[in-house]
């Protein structure tokens, strides 16, 4: 313990010494102090400064008492460019402009300004450099440089505060390219198209919304297995012969189905922190979605279980199977097949409902779209968000209808048939491919689940008895 304290103390001491030394070194009186170095955002629909694309750099410095400045040189990192820049030099005496002019000379990433006469103490020197190109790789850019005093000595400028820039990705290049296309300009000049389907914004938001889409998917995919499990538990409780279990299940299901998800989200997200229970937003989002879906799933499962004819229970009972065994091996596998379409519909609902989590600050798709829209003042990010939602929901809607058709067909008995072993059996279509899993007789959940997806030619009409 003592040793650790000593170690920490010594580290602290060294750190202090270093800081002191650094400030002493940096401190030597500057004749020209850097006041400001900023860049104008050049991101389409954003507030970022993108490297590799021209923007305006504004630099300001103040002449210290007793000093006179003759010239200033600014320097960007090696990959920055001043090549096409035009510079506006302003020298201010307090609030008044002085008639001092500046002459610029440019060499790649170095820009020098020679003043027509020295700037006196207290003067503020402002350089507005149009078409400055920051390094395309992005990152924090520090503007360095030198200055020359009236007496001819040259010193280094104190480095500016870093300007954070975004790297110029290929997305950015696409947007830049789009900006220049006449058809894009024509497209955007249409009020509707420009407001809802601006190509540049579609491209950028496709990328900036993507993490939000992943969060949505993540939340619902993690939440759903829990929802299924909880739903099954409550469905079985509701079907239980014990009154207390039934009552608990009924209250749980009815309260959750009878109140808006929005309200449940608010209660959980604002209520739990008030009880000093702090859970990560995404995790809490998963919990809320799982609980909400479980109530709907419980009802779906209950209806599914109840739709199994009583004869199935009797047949199982007549074989000597107990209640649990009957449930697990006979009833649930049949229920699974019946509820797949409804459960998939519920999954679609749950996926869409994650959008409500944006109201409590979960960084999901809707949240990203909202932010991007408020920055760009354009509706396109919402339309892009819609595309993202549809990417998931449309295929699932298709899946639901396919399964429904398959189930309807197989209940008519017109599903694919396995090959009969007897050669003389003309009832079996020889073309019918053998079912891959048809030969295994277990009541496995997996085969029950996959049954509706199995492909096969359909054979319509009944099958005659073979004697």
């Amino acid at each position, binding site marked *: 313990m003592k040793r650790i304290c000593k170690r920490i103390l010594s580290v602290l001491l060294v750190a202090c010494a270093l800081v002191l030394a650094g400030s002493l070194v940096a401190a030597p009186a500057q004749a020209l102090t850097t006041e400001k170095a900023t860049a104008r955002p050049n991101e389409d629909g954003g507030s970022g400064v993108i490297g590799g694309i021209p923007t305006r750099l504004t630099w300001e410095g103040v002449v210290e008492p007793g000093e006179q400045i003759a010239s200033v040189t600014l320097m960007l990192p090696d990959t920055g460019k001043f090549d096409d820049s035009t510079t506006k030099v302003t020298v201010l005496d307090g609030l008044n402009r002085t008639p001092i002019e500046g002459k610029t000379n440019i060499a790649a990433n170095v820009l020098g300004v020679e003043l027509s006469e020295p700037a006196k103490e207290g003067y503020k020197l402002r350089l507005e450099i149009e078409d400055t190109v920051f390094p395309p790789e992005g990152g924090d850019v520090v503007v360095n440089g030198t200055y020359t005093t009236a007496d001819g000595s040259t010193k280094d400028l104190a480095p500016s505060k870093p300007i954070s820039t975004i790297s110029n990705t290929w997305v950015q290049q696409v947007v830049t390219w789009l900006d220049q296309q006449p058809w894009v300009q024509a497209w955007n000049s249409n009020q509707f198209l420009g407001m809802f389907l601006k190509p540049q914004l579609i491209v950028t938001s496709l990328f900036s919304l993507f993490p939000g889409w992943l969060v949505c998917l993540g939340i619902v995919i993690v939440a759903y297995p829990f929802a299924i499990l909880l739903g099954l538990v409550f469905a079985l409780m509701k079907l239980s012969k014990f009154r207390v279990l039934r009552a608990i299940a009924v209250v749980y299901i009815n309260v959750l189905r009878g109140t808006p998800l929005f309200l449940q989200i608010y209660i959980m997200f604002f209520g739990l922190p008030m009880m000093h229970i702090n859970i990560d937003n995404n995790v809490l989002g998963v919990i809320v979605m799982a609980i909400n879906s479980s109530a709907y799933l419980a009802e779906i499962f209950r209806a599914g279980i109840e739709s199994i004819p009583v004869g199935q229970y009797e047949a199982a009972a007549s074989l000597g199977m107990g209640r649990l065994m009957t449930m697990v091996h006979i009833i649930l596998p049949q229920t699974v097949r019946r509820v797949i379409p409804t459960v998939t519909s519920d999954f679609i609902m749950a996926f869409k409902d994650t959008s409500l989590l944006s109201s409590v600050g979960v960084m999901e798709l809707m949240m990203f779209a909202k932010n991007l829209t408020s920055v760009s003042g354009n509706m396109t990010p919402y339309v892009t968000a819609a595309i993202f939602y549809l990417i998931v929901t449309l295929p699932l809607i298709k899946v639901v209808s396919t399964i429904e058709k398959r189930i309807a067909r197989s209940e008519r008995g017109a599903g694919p048939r396995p090959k009969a072993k*007897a050669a003389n059996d003309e009832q079996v279509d020889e073309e019918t491919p053998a079912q891959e899993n048809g030969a295994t007789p277990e009541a496995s959940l997996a085969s029950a689940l996959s049954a509706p997806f199995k492909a096969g030619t359909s054979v319509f009409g009944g099958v005659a008895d073979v004697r």
Partner: protein
Amino acid sequence: MFDKAKARVDARREARQVPPPLDPEQAAKEAHERDKGLTKHHFEPHEHPCVRIEHLMKTFDGETQVLTDVNLTVWPGEVVCVLGPSGSGKSTMLRCINLLETPTAGHILIEDKEITGHLPTKEVNKLRQNLGMVFQSFNLFPNLTAKGNVMIGQTKVLKKSKEEAEAEALKQLDAVGLGDRADFKPAQLSGGQQQRVAIARAVAMHPDILLFDEPTSALDPELVRGVLDVMRDLAENGGMTMIVVTHEMGFAREVADRVVFMEGGVVVEQGTPEQVFDNPQHNRTAEFLGSIG
């Protein structure tokens, strides 16, 4: 509402009035006396009946009295066909035997062991393993193949290995003439084939007694014969004890050791097929047989 409650109370009161089950020895003696001329089945003097139904009564919701007072004994290896108009309580009696219905009053004894009253669930399951049942509507498990249907009771209830169960399943399916349909799902089979699978499923559990609840009633006429052939084979070659509720007079006449005619919740008449069909003692029996044809 009060009527219902009153009826329920009355039913319970009546239930109390049913005498306790007879002592096995005495019951066997009485059954020997009674059944001697009534069945073609030959039973030994020391044998006890394997099913004994005494004063069986069943009311639904305390109102509808389906079984009033049923008395019946079935001997090991005997084939009993139960006839009667619909609503006469044949099916209910059958379902009472494996406790799919709980008897309101009276006694059912299987191998001299009473199953009525409060039987623990485990005992009930054990009992049902021993009583195969074939339903009017087949009740095959649609999620399983024919083979799977025959296997599941063996693997889950009898805890047989998969291979063993599969071999048994194929054997039983062969016996009902469906060896080539082992991998078909019930929906892909005709009604007659489904019912034969159901019979294979029941037989594969090797029960002592098979109960048939109108096994051919839901079938198209041309599919009936296949099922009856299987049942006849079981009766004649399998030596199985069978209680068959049926409307198939031909089958009853040919295969049954004894024919029981029920109406209004009681056994009206019983006897060998010849006695009942050719020389019915009761008017109702004659009427019923005449109307059926």
